[in-house]
């Protein structure tokens, strides 16, 4: 890996890690789209800072954008608090208005000068190694690396410092307020942090990657764990992995690196969505199947008489299961020694009867075929036995 590739991956990873730290809280607070809203709404702040300072100085733009980020959150809260709008609608009306204002300001006052949206909102990570910070004659390395590194350290230290406060206000606002934790203050702290992260990151990597990194890795991590601390570590790890493999993906296809990183985070999310140990699709499906099988086993045992056997044909008629299912279920029970094959059917073993009785179920007195259907199941009772 060349030096410039290393810089790109490092910048991407730092952005991913910073975003994961604050994004996890956004996802847990069900405010994932506030990150998206902020990343668009900071535009007028950048333009105003640009117009006032008259140049693309990073510091003034950071201040302008952060102020607008906090203003966005404030306006969203304000319109939500009036109870005239729902939360999603509040977000949906505030950020486009601010964004529109930003575009308007650019086209009215800044179009003649060197400020176009490409460099402000869609900064390209591929240029990161080229823009080098110098101090006198001394080259200090890429500017983006310093900026994103600073944002990461800021996030890391503040999240560590206020971990307890963030945790309790995220999960139980009422309790936090009762205990004197000032949820509103913590909320605005988090939102300022999101604003700083968005602004500090998208100049070097572009807005779309920031939004992806704020939402996708934390969501993926959320599917893997129930613990906040684990969630944070996982989110950072998945974010960094997205940056690294996304870079490789983009290189292979010779396409946008930021796009590649976003896509990679999506693929990682897809993997978690499908294969997460407890909440993944596969795990759900397996659990569902296991439950179904256990239910079938219990049903089958409940239908067998205490003495004597029940013919395969009758069983087939009774259950109408898919072909082969009855035999498969019977085989599983047989392996456990609870049923055994009779001459032309199936019967309970002594162990099987004991099992049923231990679970509070009475095996049938008479063979199934001799009683009408309603009666035969009535003896089994509604509660299934647990083997």
């Amino acid at each position, binding site marked *: 890996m060349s030096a410039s590739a290393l810089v790109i991956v490092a910048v991407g990873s730092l952005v991913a890690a910073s975003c994961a730290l604050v994004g996890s809280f956004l996802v847990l607070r*069900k*405010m*994932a*789209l506030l*990150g*998206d809203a902020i990343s*668009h709404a900071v535009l007028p702040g950048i333009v105003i800072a640009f117009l006032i300072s008259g140049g693309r100085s990073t510091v003034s733009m950071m201040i302008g954008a952060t102020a607008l980020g906090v203003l966005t959150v404030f306006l969203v809260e304000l*319109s939500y608090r*009036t109870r*005239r709008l*729902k939360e*999603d*609608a509040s*977000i*949906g*009306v505030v950020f*486009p*208005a601010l*964004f*529109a*204002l930003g*575009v*308007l300001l*650019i*086209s*009215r006052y800044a*179009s003649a000068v060197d400020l176009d*949206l*490409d460099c402000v909102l*869609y900064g*390209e990570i*591929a240029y990161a190694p080229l823009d080098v910070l110098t101090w006198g004659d001394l080259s200090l390395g890429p500017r983006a690396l310093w900026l994103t590194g600073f944002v990461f350290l800021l996030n890391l230290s503040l999240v560590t410092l206020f971990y307890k406060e963030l945790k309790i206000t995220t999960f139980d606002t009422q309790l936090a307020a009762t205990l004197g934790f000032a949820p509103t203050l913590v909320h605005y702290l988090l939102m300022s942090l999101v604003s700083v992260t968005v602004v500090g990151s998208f100049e070097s990597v572009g807005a*779309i*990657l920031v*939004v*992806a990194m*704020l*939402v*996708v890795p934390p*969501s993926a991590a*959320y*599917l893997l764990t129930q613990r906040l601390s684990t969630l944070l570590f996982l989110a950072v790890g998945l974010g960094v992995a997205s940056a690294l493999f996304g870079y490789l993906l*983009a290189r292979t*296809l*010779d*396409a*946008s*690196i*930021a*796009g*590649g*990183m*976003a*896509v990679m*985070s*999506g693929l990682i*999310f897809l993997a978690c*969505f499908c294969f997460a140990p407890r*909440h993944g*699709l596969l795990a759900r499906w397996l659990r569902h199947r296991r439950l179904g099988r256990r239910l079938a086993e219990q049903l089958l045992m409940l239908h067998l008489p205490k003495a004597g056997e029940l013919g395969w044909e009758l069983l087939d008629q009774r259950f109408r299961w898919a072909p082969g299912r009855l035999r498969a279920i019977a085989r599983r029970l047989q392996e456990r020694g609870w049923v055994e094959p009779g001459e032309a059917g199936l019967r309970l073993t002594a162990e099987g009867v004991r099992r049923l009785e231990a679970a509070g179920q009475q095996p049938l007195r008479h063979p199934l075929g001799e009683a009408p259907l309603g009666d035969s199941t009535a003896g089994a009772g509604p509660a299934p036995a647990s083997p």
Partner: protein
Amino acid sequence: MDLSFFASLLDGSLFGSFLGASSFGGIEWSFTLRNVLLGTTLLGVVGGVLGCFTLLRRESLLGDALAHAALPGVCIAYLITGAKSSGPLFLGALVAGVVGALTILVVVRWSKLVTDAAIGIVLSVFFGLGIMLLTYIQKLPLGNQSGLDKYLFGQAATLMPQDVQLMALLGAAVLVLLALFFKELKLLTFDREYAASLGMPVLRLEVLMTLLLVAVVVVGLSTVGAVLMVATLVTPAAAARQWTDRLGWMLVLAALIGGGSGMVGALASASVDRLPTGPVVVLVASALLTLSITLAPRRGLLWSRLRYLRMVRRIRRENLLKDLWNFGERRGDEPGQRVPWTYVMGLRGLTGGRVEATARALEQEGLVRRGERDLRLTTSGIAAAQAMVRKHRLWEVYLTRKLELAEDHVHRDADVMEHALTPAAVAQLEEVLGYPTLDPHGRPIPPARGELVSTAPISGGAA
């Protein structure tokens, strides 16, 4: 169907001026202006109507996701067909939008994530894919995303008659759908489970609505762009919501507000130099929303604030009446005796000015007579005050007898309820309690005011 916009997305050489720099000196009725005007107005109408449903279903930000999700569709359609003809590209955008909507549904249905996060995931990942494909297609030096700003900001100035026709077609489709299934859509919006239990084709209607939504969003891309599309859907609907509680009227109003903002946006950007269409449309709609939230009758913030202030003032007047009466009772004298200002001043933690204003208002109603150093109740003032005390003490009796609260715990609650009890409630209370004559503290409950002196209702100045 010829949306040249989608073809121009892929064309790196066409560096679009998203600012829509159509510099007319004053409004000039040109071919372009006609298209832009019709296009933005139609988009506003259709977006406003469909936006009502997404707003009420709390899926306001779905439009944002769909708008961003369409980009990879354009690119994939190009990669498959290899031609920059607009039809397939438009179709690609539609398909990608639908896939995006489905993905959101699947993620919400099969994971513990909520809609908000699902929208964020689809939005950013699909858009990231779109950017990747776009750069891959352009095979230009890294970072040249020239088609992208057009996608994000739209190009109202390049609207073609075909685009306008397509929007009209969409509008007609929405109208037909509404005319045929208004009842079903209404029920679906407010109570999905109930609609399903009645055997309505819930899923099919939802698919149909989502398809229309995707179509509007994709068409809107060429006018206002991906970012502002969400406002085209949400803002007019949110504004319309403030004026009415009926879905039918809300749809009409949203169409008017959306169409109006579209029209104003197009005209403003045509008449003023360097004024982009999309942002003006959104800002006009946002201004209308702000107006609606403040000024709409009943729901308007201004009116509810006024109602609140009026109530506060009424309660202050009622409290002062009661305080004056209590002063008289405590002295064992007749209730109309002179009460020194110094007594009432410190009583309720109000500033002196507030107390004086309250007393002045009561004097205007003929309930109080103000003097240099003291004030007293007039005859009708006594009756009004007695009515208040009566409500207070009756409520205290109710709390101790029926709710079995301790005698020393009921005063505070009665202090609140005395301002809220209606004459009918008081009558019922008396009946339930068997016409008590003493309150829990052993003080007499004054008789109904009619038995003493007839007075005007105290709430004369209040609503």
